[in-house]
């Protein structure tokens, strides 16, 4: 085990990506084997690295403290292992699901390139290589979305690129600021208190990290991508990789680079972002009519729990946030993959058209159900454990309001998954979809593996908590403050858990009420909430954007004064899609008019420029 081995998780997928890209279509079998085998090798080394724990590989690079510095320690080795695991499952899944897609070759190559960049970003121990790998992810993100091949894919890809680009831009600014303040670019040596300019650096880096994870208000591309990009991509990036990376960086930012104190301004800021994300996104998720879109809004909502957990700055909450990250990656991947499985056979993911698939697709239904219960926080699955930890952490800070927001999120999460599961797999069989069979093993296997992990991490939660999570916190908690998971009694009988269970019951009642009121049609179960006075309008505004963002944009602009506080989605989207574009076009128009091809005109500019420069130089000289 030499330090040079650390290059392997970066170089191997990069080389594989190049090979996969050039392999001709006729050698598809070889391509699939290579992809799966490559991912398996990475998983193996993930374990090796996890066992090795401490490694450091540094070579001088650009001078001025910018070294190519890779560091493996318990946190990065844990993320590395998780990334490799998801890569393997996605590669396996894609061999079937992306088989007939027009650009499947590129898809695989992009996936592995993403893995290379992600591994690099996780291992980087210097801010500059971190930025390098982080930006590389932007390119593959763009490429992967365009593969969707829908008419709007290109536009969605640009939207994702611009939004992520903005977040990355904030990250770079924050890193620059941090670098100046800390005086070093070596990440393991940085630790500053978030006050004064460092607070600005913290907020900027937080935007970068939380934006990558998809927290509000940087989420708007995810629901669009759910429709326009391949579903495998959704399970791969927004569900798994971006959460792991974003939360990893957020944890590093909040715990290593800056030391945020419980109850401090930065901690409260993070908790607010988390709580707002949880509630707003889950409300959007509740009324979705398409399974993939519903899942994508949950992918946003769940980030809120992680941000909230880390934001508590209480050891227990932080542990909960990080644990939630890994749990979420498992069940959300599983859910997206199940949605993909349904799409693979039924050809649609619209809730209205589906129903009663559990008999024909029992394995998918089983996987989906387990993952859905896990995300809803049903005992004894993993989601229950990590959510409880976040609740405890939030309560411990003394700001009960955040715990309440998290509970509200829990109610609607369960309600929306009752609706989704009920519509797709239970209830009556619809006629829109012809008879179908279970998906092949390469599709169901990853789903079942993920579902199994959800159960494992839930029932034996001490295992991941002590093996993975506790070592991470080891360096972050003050000396002596031993983290004791047993003291919080993560079982059914304590006041917090009882409230959580009450939330689940409430969700069930809401669903039942809607189901009965909607004429026993499950996909209408959310309609009573959807139709509440006032709420309806809010939803409509949010939804209309979804159907036709560009044309509706103008209308929303006019009604902006009325609905500003209601439609949180819209104004943010407006900034990305309208204001920047229109200002650019206007400015360009004016400048183009000035270039009318008249020679005298141009010469006049030159002379004017000469006069101004001469004036300025003479003035400054004095």
């Amino acid at each position, binding site marked *: 085990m030499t330090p040079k081995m650390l290059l392997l998780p970066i170089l191997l997928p990069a080389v594989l990506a190049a090979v996969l890209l050039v392999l001709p279509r006729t050698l598809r079998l070889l391509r699939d084997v290579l992809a799966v085998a490559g991912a398996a090798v990475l998983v193996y080394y993930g374990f090796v690295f996890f066992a090795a724990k401490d490694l450091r590989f540094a070579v001088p690079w650009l001078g001025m403290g910018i070294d190519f510095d890779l560091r493996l320690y318990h946190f990065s080795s844990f993320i590395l292992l998780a990334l490799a695991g998801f890569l393997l499952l996605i590669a396996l899944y894609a061999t079937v699901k992306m088989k007939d897609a027009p650009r499947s070759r590129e898809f695989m190559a992009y996936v592995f390139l993403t893995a290379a960049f992600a591994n690099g970003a996780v291992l980087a121990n210097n801010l500059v290589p971190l930025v390098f790998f982080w930006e590389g992810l932007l390119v593959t993100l763009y490429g992967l979305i365009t593969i969707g091949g829908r008419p709007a894919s290109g536009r969605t890809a640009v939207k994702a690129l611009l939004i992520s680009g903005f977040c990355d831009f904030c990250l770079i600014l924050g890193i620059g600021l941090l670098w100046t303040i800390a005086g070093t670019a070596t990440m393991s040596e940085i630790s500053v208190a978030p006050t004064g300019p460092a607070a600005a650096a913290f907020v900027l880096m937080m935007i970068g990290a939380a934006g990558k994870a998809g927290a509000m208000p940087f989420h708007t591309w995810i629901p669009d991508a759910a429709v326009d990009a391949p579903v495998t991509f959704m399970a791969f990036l927004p569900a798994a990789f971006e959460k792991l990376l974003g939360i990893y960086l957020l944890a590093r930012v909040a715990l290593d680079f800056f030391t945020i104190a419980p109850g401090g301004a930065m901690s409260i800021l993070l908790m607010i972002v988390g709580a707002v994300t949880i509630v707003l996104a889950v409300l959007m998720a509740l009324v979705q009519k398409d399974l993939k879109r519903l899942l994508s809004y949950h992918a946003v909502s769940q980030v809120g729990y992680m941000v909230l957990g880390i934001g508590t700055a209480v050891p227990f909450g932080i542990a909960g946030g990080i644990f939630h990250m890994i749990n979420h990656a498992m069940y959300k991947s599983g859910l997206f993959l199940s949605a993909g499985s349904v799409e693979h056979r039924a050809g649609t993911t619209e809730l209205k058209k589906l129903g009663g698939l559990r008999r024909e697709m029992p394995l998918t239904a089983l996987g989906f159900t387990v993952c859905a219960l896990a995300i809803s926080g049903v005992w004894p699955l993993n989601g229950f454990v990590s959510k409880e930890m976040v609740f405890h952490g939030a309560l411990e800070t003394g700001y009960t309001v955040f715990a309440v927001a998290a509970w509200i999120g829990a109610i609607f999460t369960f309600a929306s998954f009752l609706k989704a599961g009920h519509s797709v797999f239970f209830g009556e069989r619809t006629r829109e979809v012809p008879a179908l069979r279970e998906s092949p093993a390469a599709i169901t296997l990853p789903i079942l593996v993920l579902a199994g992990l959800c159960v494992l991490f839930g029932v034996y939660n001490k295992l991941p908590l002590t093996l993975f999570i506790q070592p991470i916190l080891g360096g972050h908690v003050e000396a002596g403050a031993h983290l004791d998971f047993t003291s919080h009694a993560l079982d059914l009988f304590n006041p917090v858990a009882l409230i959580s269970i009450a939330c689940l019951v409430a969700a069930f009642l809401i669903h039942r009420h809607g189901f009965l009121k909607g004429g026993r049609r499950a996909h209408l179960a959310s309609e009573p909430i959807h139709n509440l006075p006032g709420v309806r309008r809010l939803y409509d505004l949010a939804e209309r954007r979804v159907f036709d963002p560009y044309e509706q944009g103008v209308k929303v602009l006019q009604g902006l004064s009325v609905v500003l506080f209601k439609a949180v989605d819209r104004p943010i989207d407006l900034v990305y899609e309208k204001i920047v574009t229109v200002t650019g076009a206007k400015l360009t128009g004016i400048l183009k008019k000035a270039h009318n091809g008249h*020679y*005298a005109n141009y010469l*006049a500019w030159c*002379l004017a420029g000469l*006069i101004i420069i001469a004036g300025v130089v003479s003035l400054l000289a004095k």
Partner: protein
Amino acid sequence: MIVQTALLIGLVLFSVLALLVKDLLRSAISLAAASLLLGIVFFRMGAPYAAVFEISVVAGLITVLFVLTIALTKAGDEVRESRIANVVFPLVFVAFVVIDALVMKSLLGKVPALAAGAETGSFGEVLWRGRTFDLVGQIAVILAGVFAVLALFRKRDKHD
């Protein structure tokens, strides 16, 4: 002195004319005239070689070249200047001349005398003896001019 002033005024007039006339051909001829006048000014100020280069290179070669290229273009293709450009340019030009005059007036007093002794001999001697490298450049300019004429007068057999 009067001749000198007249020559300088003529130089400025032709230069402005070269910019303002709509017909490219007349514009090029005005430029040639301006260069010619500049050459005469050089001569009168005791810089014969500068005058020769000015007249030979600028007035001669480039102008001939471009009179000919313009002759190659179709008739009636002249560039149309807008009214605004015709107004704006003189204004800026006048402003430029005024500012230039003011600056130069204050400047002329401050410029120290030429450091004597560094480069002795007549101007011509300096040019030939001390500046041989420039000859390479002159040769290159003339070569470029010759090839430019060759290029612009070649038969347009394949490309239109």
